[in-house]
Each structure stands twice: as structure tokens, then as C-alpha cells.
């Protein structure tokens, strides 16, 4: 589904990704871990099409297409979804209004009928149950005044409504207490599917107790320095990131 080959990207003059290689197949859940500043979030944003990152070399092939040639909205319409670490607050636009516009943009792209207000309300009512979100919240301005947990639940709600093929979760666990984390993880697990892939980015092993990945990759200094299965997360949990750093240092 997704092939990242020798991806280099920079912000301003600073190179952040220095040759990422990653292969993700449908049905798989990949976790990307790594210390702060290793390039995890940059990778997520480059995948979603954020314009202030400049890709200097390498390529990303998504479902046989050149992802880097696509606008952010084209990527979304092709099934990519990024759950933000810091969801944006937009006063004056309700979640319902915004999400209906987004869903209909996707449906139009896929040659489906747009949903009318009644159909959409029925859909969103069902989906809010999944993340245990208050109905009143979705009629309020998007994320405005939401708690950290409410914002993250809203991200998962959007993900379930937009029904992506490739979901990117950027530090979805940050700022969540254990109850909120459980709710969010349950929402994510419910969305695991044979034809859908997920990339879960996290600093901590904690999230992976709830969302168990098929593969784990450790990112350091803009490269994948170690890959393995879920046992790798436990090793990182007990030993920290320092042993990875020294291992990388000894190789170079």
C-alpha cells in the first residue's frame, strides 16, 4: 500500500528526514517510535502533504501513485487521514458542518452521492458512540475550548466518519489520561481492518499496550535505525532510547 524510499526532507535549512525507508501493507499496523526530535511528526506531516516541509530526495508510492505530487486534499480524497497531535481550533465552524463538508468532498471524489443533512446526522450519531463523545460537543465550534481528550476523540471520530485507507496517528496518546487513552484506543482498534493500514506514532510504549502493532520501527536522527515486532517496544520501555543512540553511534 505504502512504499517510502530513501526519503529526505527539510524545514528551512535543517534536514530532518535523512533517508527513510518503510513498507506498509494493507491490514498492518506499524508503530513508529523514537526520542524527541527524531523526525516522527515530520514524517507524518510529509505524508499528509504539509507544505512547509521540503522533500529534497526520495519518493513515496501510495497505492501505486506518486504521493508527493498530490495536494493535501487530493491525498485525503485518496484515503489518507492524519490524526493531529495538536488539532486546530476553528471558532465559527461546528464539527458537524465541517465534517459533512469533508465527507461530501471525499464522496464526490469517489463518485458517490453526497449525503444530505439527515443522512449525515444519522451517520455521525452512530460514530460518536464509538468514541463516547457527547452529541452536544459536535455542534460546537470545531475543537474550540475542547479538553485535550475531547480533541483527540474528535480526531478519531473524524477518522471513523471519513473511513480512510491509510490512517496516520501522530502522538494520539499525548496529553491523555488513562481513561481517555482507553477510549481513544478502543476507537482505533474498532477501525482496524484487512483493507486498511495504520501508522501509529508515539513516544511512549504505553499506547502500544492498547493498540498492539504488527511492526515497530525506531526513528533516530531522521532514519529508521531499528525495526522489529511488538517485543521491541518492551525493550525500549525497559532500556530507554540511549542504547539505540549508542548502537547507531558505534556503527557510524
Amino acid at each position, binding site marked *: 500500500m505504502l512504499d517510502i524510499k530513501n526519503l529526505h526532507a527539510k524545514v528551512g535549512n535543517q534536514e530532518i528526514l535523512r533517508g527513510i525507508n518503510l513498507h506498509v501493507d494493507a491490514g498492518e499496523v506499524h508503530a513508529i517510535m523514537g526520542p524527541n526530535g527524531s523526525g516522527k511528526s515530520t514524517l507524518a506531516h510529509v505524508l499528509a502533504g504539509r507544505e512547509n516541509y521540503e522533500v529534497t530526495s526520495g519518493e513515496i508510492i501510495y497505492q501505486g501513485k506518486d504521493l508527493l505530487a498530490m495536494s493535501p486534499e487530493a491525498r485525503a480524497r485518496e484515503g489518507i487521514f492524519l490524526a493531529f497531535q495538536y488539532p486546530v481550533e*476553528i471558532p465559527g465552524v461546528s464539527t458537524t458542518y465541517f465534517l459533512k*463538508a469533508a465527507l461530501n468532498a471525499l464522496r464526490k471524489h469517489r463518485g458517490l452521492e453526497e449525503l444530505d443533512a439527515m443522512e449525515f446526522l444519522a451517520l455521525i450519531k452512530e460514530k460518536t458512540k464509538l468514541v463516547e463523545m457527547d452529541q452536544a460537543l459536535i455542534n460546537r465550534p470545531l475543537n474550540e475550548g475542547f479538553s485535550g481528550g475531547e480533541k483527540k476523540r474528535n480526531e478519531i471520530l473524524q477518522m471513523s466518519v471519513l473511513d480512510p485507507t491509510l490512517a496516520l496517528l501522530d502522538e494520539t496518546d499525548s496529553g491523555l489520561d488513562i481513561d481517555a487513552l482507553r477510549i481513544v484506543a478502543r476507537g482505533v482498534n474498532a477501525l482496524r481492518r484487512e483493507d486498511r493500514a495504520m501508522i501509529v506514532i508515539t513516544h511512549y510504549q504505553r499506547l502500544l499496550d492498547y493498540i498492539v502493532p504488527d511492526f515497530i520501527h525506531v526513528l533516530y536522527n531522521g532514519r529508521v535505525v531499528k525495526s522489529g515486532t511488538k517485543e521491541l517496544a518492551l525493550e525500549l520501555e525497559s532500556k530507554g532510547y540511549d542504547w539505540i543512540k549508542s548502537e547507531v553511534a558505534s556503527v557510524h
Partner: protein
Amino acid sequence: MLATEGKEQYLAAFDQARSTRQVKGPSWLDELREAGMASFEALGFPTTRNEAWKYTSVEPISSQSFVHANGEAKALNSSEILSRSFVDIESCRLVFVNGVYTPQLSRTENLPAGVQVQNLAETVQQNDGSLASQLGRYARHRHEPFVALNTAFMEDGAVVIVPPGCRVTTPVYLVFVSAALERQVISHPRVFILLGAASEAKIIESYVGVNSGSYFCNAVTELIGGADALIDHYRVQQEGDAGLHVGTLEADLQRGCQLTAHAVTLSGSLVRNNVHIVLNGEGAGCLLNGLYLADKRQHIDNFTEIEHVKPRASSLELYKGILSGSAHGVFNGKIIVHKDAQKSDARQTNKNLLLSENAVVNTKPQLEIYADDVKCSHGSTIGQLDTDALFYLRSRGLGLDEARSLLSFAFASDVVGRIRVDSLRQRLDDYMVAKFRKQRVS
């Protein structure tokens, strides 16, 4: 044409109007007009050397000659006028075309007893006492050249008088239609609003241009709010592409009176809104909301002035502008706290969204505080659309244009949300959705 020549033509027109006026009005009105003309003769048109007109040249007005339409062009499509002017079809309304009352488009049924909603020309003939004593008393023709002109040339307009304690629950619409003729027309509509103590009313003034020709609408509203009266006053402008508009609201609020005044400017070539509120009684309050949308080469200037005269009065002001194309927006927010106005609370905010590189905004707060125990704050911002928000929306599948229009709409939403006439708010919402959609194509 030089500004002085521009002035000359008004002097000549005044003499002509005086000699040809068919219906003689009461003498106090003649005297008021004479005083207005004398003021204009002394003041002349303002220039950009005048601090209050620094960013707005009135040359498009002063350099052209206009004629009074005297009620021509009445053969207009009435349903178009009513829908364009956001009128709630069931509501009470007075409609004026090029400054002249048009009874066949108006409707004044179902008003509470004692409430007077009538056109000025007719009311003047009845020689109403409160009108005779108060018309022209608050609108400062000696200071404001365009008020002076309006005072000199006032023929028709609207009179709304609500007796003490009376609540008018349905909004009253005053619609001023400008329809350019073969020659460029001018109108000076005058509105007089008097709310008795503890009365309540919602009044909507709607200014619409129905074709693309040039004209000048110079409107003045005098509003007197009695003690503890509750007033919602809306001015919605949709002048034509070549329409010139100067609108002045002069309000005097007594003890405990609360005024909410909205100024919504959606179109017009050159628009200047003057708002002057005098908080003339203890605990009086005003809430000023403004929204201006400008594109192409439009010039929209909002000049607001709030005077805190008595103690414990409050003013809260929020003006927002969205400018695109080569539009020019101006906001000037003057707050004067007089020395007896202790415990005044004045807050002012002006926010501007620039959607293009060529759009310009000048924003200027002006605080003059002569009392020592007051709370005053002001802030202004000029910015572009938030790139984080744009990316967030696009990452969900909204196209760039749609994301931009959604964020523009969102920017204006808190001002629109403060409109307490549901049908008006809904119409304005619809208008903006359509406008921003259209903008992204061009």
C-alpha cells in the same frame, strides 16, 4: 471639478429647492434646513488633511454632480427589492426609492397602539411636537459636513416613535433603495428614532442599490434612547458597485438605556459609516458590532466615536473586516471618557482579515480619557488566514478554495452571531456563504 465648485452646486441646488418646494413645511423645518446649509457652506467637503478623513478621499462625491430624483424610477421590481434588502416579508416596513417614500411597497399594520412608524414628509405636515423639538438636535450639522448636507436637503425619511413602556416585538424595517437613472441621483434620507423610557424595539435600516449606475446616498439617523430603553439598531448596506454612501448614526442614550448597533457593509464603491454614540446617562450602555466585506476596488471606512459622559456607562465594540482584491478598509475607533464619567468601562476590538496582497487596511484606535477611575482597552489585528487551520481542513479533503471560504465565513461568524433578528441573521449567513463561494472562483 474643484471641491469648491462641488460645494457651489449644492448651494445652487439649495436655493432652487427652496424656491420650487411645492408643499410648505413648518417654519422650524425651514430654519433647520437653512442652518444645515449654513453649516455646510462653512465646513465644505472634508479633505484628507482632516484627521477624521485621513484615509478616505471624498473626491468621488465632491467632484461629481448629482440630481435629486424626486420619486422617478418607481417602476422597480418590488419582490427583487424586498428579497435583496433582507426584509422579513411579514414585518412592518417603510420603503423609500431614491429618497422618496413608496407606500405601495410599505406595510405598517399590526403595530402596538401608540407606536408611530411613518414617513418623515407626512409626519412633518402633522407638525408633531416631539419631532419639532428634537429633530436636528442630536445630529451635529455644525461639525459634520455630510450631516449638514443631509439637514439642508432633508425631504423624506422615516420616523419611529415608541411610547414609554411599550415593547415592539417584531422588527421594523426601513428600506432605502437607490436606483441610478440616466443622470446620477442623490438622496438624503433622514431617520428619526425616539424610544420612550423603558420601551423596546428592533429597527433595521437596509440600504440597497438595484442597478450598476452611480449615485450618492447620504443618510442620517438620529436615535434618542429614553431611560432604560432597549434598542437593537441594524444598518445593512448593499449599495451598488458604483454606489457612493455616507451614513451617519447619531445616538443619545439616557440613564440605563442599552443600545446594540450593528453596521454591516457588504458592497458599494465608496462607503463611509459614521457612528457617534453619546452615553448621556448613568449606566447607559452600547454594544457596537461591525462587519465589512470588501473586494475589487471598494473603499469602506468605519468611523466610530463613543462619548462616555456620565458615570458607570459601558461600551463594547467589535468590528471585523474581510478584504480581498484591491479593497481598502478603514477603521477608526474613538472613545472619549469625559471627566465626570467615572467607572466607565470601554472595550474596543478591530480585527481584519486580508485575503489578497493588494488589499489594504488602516486601523486606528483613539482614546481620550479625562476621568481617572475607568477601564478602557483596545486592540486591533490585521492578518491572513491561518495556515495551520488551512492545512487541517485540506487534510480532511476540503479543497484550498473551500477551506479558505470556510475560514473567512468562520472569521465573521461571531459578529453575525450577535444579530438577534433570526431572519436577518439567516439571510446574512446565506449571503456570506454564497459570496465566499463566488469569490474563490474569481
